[in-house]
């Protein structure tokens, strides 16, 4: 494997809905950058439509959704749904924030592939993305 030919992974870090708690999203944006990925942070108040539009425009390999307001059960699946509607099936979607453990099986069933809660190390997220992106 020639390392220099390896494509740089592009990640969109997105704040869903109206939630303004963006410490985690910002730390992840800066942290994944440190891990050698190209990261784009959407800023606050992104509707699922806007997130999907940005993801397509920026041609990202992965989307990290953040929500601490309790609206994750609507907002996260909606992003996956809209991606499918647009015919995008090779983008890895993961989530983080305050997500009660009992909601995780539901979210995984809806196509959010992993949920990272408080206390997650950026290194863990980076490794998960590297291993699981669908476009190699």
């Amino acid at each position: 494997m020639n390392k220099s030919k390896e494509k740089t992974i592009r990640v969109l870090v997105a704040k869903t809905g109206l939630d303004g708690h963006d410490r985690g999203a910002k730390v992840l944006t800066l942290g994944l950058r440190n891990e050698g990925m190209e990261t784009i942070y959407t800023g606050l108040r992104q509707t699922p439509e806007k997130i999907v539009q940005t993801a397509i425009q920026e041609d990202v390999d992965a989307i990290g959704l953040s929500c601490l307001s309790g609206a994750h059960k609507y907002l996260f699946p909606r992003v996956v749904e809209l991606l499918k509607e647009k015919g995008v099936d090779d983008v890895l979607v993961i989530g983080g924030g305050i997500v009660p453990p009992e909601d995780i099986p539901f979210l995984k069933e809806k196509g959010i592939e992993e949920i990272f809660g408080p206390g997650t190390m950026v290194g863990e997220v980076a490794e998960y993305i590297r291993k699981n992106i669908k476009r190699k």
Partner: protein
Amino acid sequence: MSADIEKIKQRKKEWEEKVLKPALERFWLKESPTEFYSPADIEDFDFPSQVGFPGEYPFTAGTYPTSPALPAPRRGLPAASGQVRAATYSGYGTSEDTRDYYIEMQRRGQRRGPNLAFDLPTQCGYDSDNPLVRGEVGKTGVAVDTLKDFEVIYEPFQGELELDRIASNFTINGPCNILIAMYFALAEKRGIPLDKLRATPQNDILKEFIARGTYIFPPRHSMRMFRDSLVFFTRHCPHVNITSVGGYHIRGAGATREQDLAFSMAILCAYLQEGVNAGLDVDSFAPRFSVNAFGGSMEFFKEIAFQRAARRMWAKVVKEKFGARNERSILLRQPAGAHMGYENCTVQRPLNNLTRSVVGAIASALSGGLPIPMPPFDEPLGLGWSLEASQLSEDAFKILYYEAKLNKVLDPLAGSYYVEHLTDEIEEAAWKELQKIESMGGVVAAIESGYMQREIAKSAFERQRRIETAEDLVVGVNCFVGENELEVQTSHLVPHPYDPVKREQAEEKQIKRLADLKKNRDNRAVSQLLKELRVKAQKEDENLIPHFIECAKAYVSEQEMCDVLRDVFGEYQPATL
């Protein structure tokens, strides 16, 4: 004195050479893992000017001459809770859901006014029926679209608990003036004069731009809204606090201790300046400023020093920069004091958060506050605290207060070489940062340029780096995570008064109620009032609150008012990371 200090410095050198060095060598240590402080670390310490007596300038030793004394609990009865303080932060689903919650809590003996948590659409100036806010209605608090919702929420607050006999808290910032106008409209409809109302709206919009994120309008227009509230409350509502400045939000977003203090002071200065610019005497409004639980971290002594430094710095700012003469302007009013920092709760082995919150509570008692362990241990587990977790927090408070008698002595660490040194150090760093912000043109300019937002993000990232490299340790997160550690299970056996099934139904119900209301109100009056709002909003000097009250009475919705203002003021566009 200085000859003594010289002697102590000399003695310290000798001690380091003769006592410390051999000890380190014995344990193969290059550096001492501990520190020791002596009078040499507070060389120019002057008790009267740097500490003083409690309740006296510069208030280092305490805001008041004595600690708020709590009544001894009578056998079999809980300690009486003051009726004129608001209840704990609460608000659920639709206005009916929240009304029912308060009815249930009153059945269980609660006598306090509501401390309302609003959902995010309400906090961001959107109505529940806006498709943009799908999924958010009733989630982080109660949905309020019109005066109708306030009428419903306050149904249980009549008679003995009429509006002039309770205090209400509103965690509202961007649309504060609109929501408080709805409350004023409710009072007027019930025949209660505004000067009898007790309330605290958070009304701290500037920290929303750098920490909490529920802004609507650009900073300069937001400051006009702040001016309107300051002037209106000062003239008409002497018992309504003007603002409850939230230092802990800034810390929670990632700011260091020094940034937290400096940014909070810069924000307070900007608010004071608005009042002065409006032609008011600083002493006529500064006593109605309050602070909402400054700080927050697990670094015990530093948080104690921080509280002392914050009181002293605030006193100097108001007295020296703004020329206040009234002692009540100069003291920093803070209902809750030091605490662990909500962001330091862990999902991992969550009962440990109780231990952490007790550490914060002890820091509070030793720095002029009550030993209130905040938050309840299940803070990071989901939304809403369980009754069990709240009970444990309240019991821990009672144990610290009644059994450990932590509040018997005020500022018990005054004169400690270490704590005085830390207090000076934190205050000095904060003054330096405050001067930097002022040289940029003040806090509004520093927000517009994105300076504060970037600095906080950098500090948050640095903290994460320290956790990932184990320079900072968090038990159960980056250390002591082996398989032999026991995962202590927590369970909720007592059902929460808010049924989760209602949460699922809240959005649809609230939307339907709003649709009915919009159909049945006098819509010609509504559009006339909105037209007038536009004209008034365009006049910079016009105070909009009286007109918001008229709009509220006609059931104009929050978003309808905000949309007019969005048109006139524009919307805030955040700086990029």
